[in-house]
């Protein structure tokens, strides 16, 4: 088996005449934190959308753990263990924090279509849900409605929910966007912690986050790969500086 969890080959997406992602060959090493950065409009979100089948690739292949998943549906991909977080917060607002996590755990029971079964059959998941919440520091809010959480905690909850699926691969789209600095730190620590035994691909504009936790970085520009490497390599690349980092970063 190769070292790479996810490999794309010549992945391309054209919207009408406009090519948002062009022939991207990306290799994400297993159990690494891999950052995807690039100027606005470079195609990062679109690339995520291709991986999760919000859009269909115009051409190219996506291989996950050796299997070609180019033609699979969103839900199928999630079931394979590739789970994404959203740029805007994605919780189930009217459900309690614990139920948010339990919904994700429930998939494992395989009873999601059991409309005849009692809700009590879900109680077996409560311990695990609480453990996960404790893990991310949300145990005190277990009974609160997700809608009542602050922004940062919503993002945390979202990550807890995602972890409940125990996904081997996580796609995070700007996980710290709009967060206060102390929240950013918390999330940063959280990501590092959960990265154990998981592959993470994330889009991030916050360079401090990228510098601190990412093992590998790919820079996209106009849909194409501009540079790849470690933070030190990439941030020293003059092309990257010009296109993305600007003068503020030495």
């Amino acid at each position, binding site marked *: 088996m190769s070292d790479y969890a996810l490999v794309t080959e010549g992945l391309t997406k054209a919207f009408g005449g406009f090519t948002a992602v062009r022939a991207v060959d990306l290799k994400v090493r297993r159990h690494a934190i891999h950052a995807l950065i690039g100027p606005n409009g470079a195609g990062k979100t*679109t690339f995520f959308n291709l991986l999760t089948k919000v859009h269909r690739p115009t051409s190219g292949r996506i291989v996950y753990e050796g299997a070609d998943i180019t033609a699979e549906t969103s839900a199928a991909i999630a079931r394979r263990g590739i789970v994404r977080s959203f740029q805007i917060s994605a919780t189930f607002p009217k459900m309690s924090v614990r139920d948010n996590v339990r919904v994700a755990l429930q998939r494992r029971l395989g009873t999601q279509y059991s409309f005849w079964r009692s809700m009590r059959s879900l109680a077996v998941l409560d311990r695990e849900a609480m453990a996960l919440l404790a893990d991310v520091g949300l145990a005190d809010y277990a009974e609160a409605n997700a809608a009542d959480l602050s922004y940062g905690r919503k993002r945390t909850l979202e990550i807890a929910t995602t972890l409940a699926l125990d996904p081997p691969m996580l796609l995070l789209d700007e996980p710290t966007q709009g967060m206060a600095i102390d929240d950013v730190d918390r999330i940063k620590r959280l990501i590092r912690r959960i990265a154990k035994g998981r592959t993470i691909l994330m889009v991030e504009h916050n*360079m401090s986050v990228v510098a601190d936790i990412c093992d590998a970085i790919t820079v996209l520009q106009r849909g194409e790969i501009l540079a790849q490497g470690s933070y030190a390599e990439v941030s020293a690349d003059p092309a990257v500086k010009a296109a993305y980092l600007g003068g503020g970063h030495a």
Partner: protein
Amino acid sequence: MLEPPVALQIRGLEAWYGESHVLHGIDLTVREGECVTLLGRNGAGRSTTLKAILGLTDRRAGSVKVRGQEAIRLSTHRIARLGLGYCPEERGIYRTLTTQENLTLLPRLGSEGMSVAEVLAMFPNLAERADSYGGRLSGGEQQMLALGRILTTGARILLLDEITEGLAPVIVEALGRAVSLLKSRGFTIVLVEQNFHFARHLADRHYVIEHGRVAAEIAAGEVERREAEVGRLLGV
């Protein structure tokens, strides 16, 4: 030295979303040509302050004077017509309008608005996507569009909510230059920012908001001296 006239004076501003009381009496004074920032943690009520100025909250009380005119009882569109330009949190791009339409949509509030061409020159990304629907732009492109379009209106008092969010560092730098330029042209700017590093070089004054109140007012010159206090308030 003659102090410039007051552009925006806010006294005891309170605001509610439904039943929940979010602002508990904000006091701010912004003079013509000044740039002030509202800092604070998530949920402190900074965005709500901007919304309450424009009457976008469910209920509000207190006093909001725009260039001396009391606006607390005016409806939103009239307040805007006093010359306020608003760049909302989460951008508020019209998804079903094209970039071009989004840019030309807003009514003119003053004579000194930028032309569409000028805006496009400022944000070349937008020029490329001019006929794309707003909803299809990338996050950063939407942010640029949101800022660009209020510059076309000629509004002289700008309320900007987290304009650097989701932008590439180069663009953030460019934006910093743009805000400085606006300031030098005499625009009055209220900046809500998470990114203190961005804000600190631009603003004349900082207000730190906490639990719907002004917790501290810090002049640009004092920042160094009060570094510790700022750090504590913002969690930097």
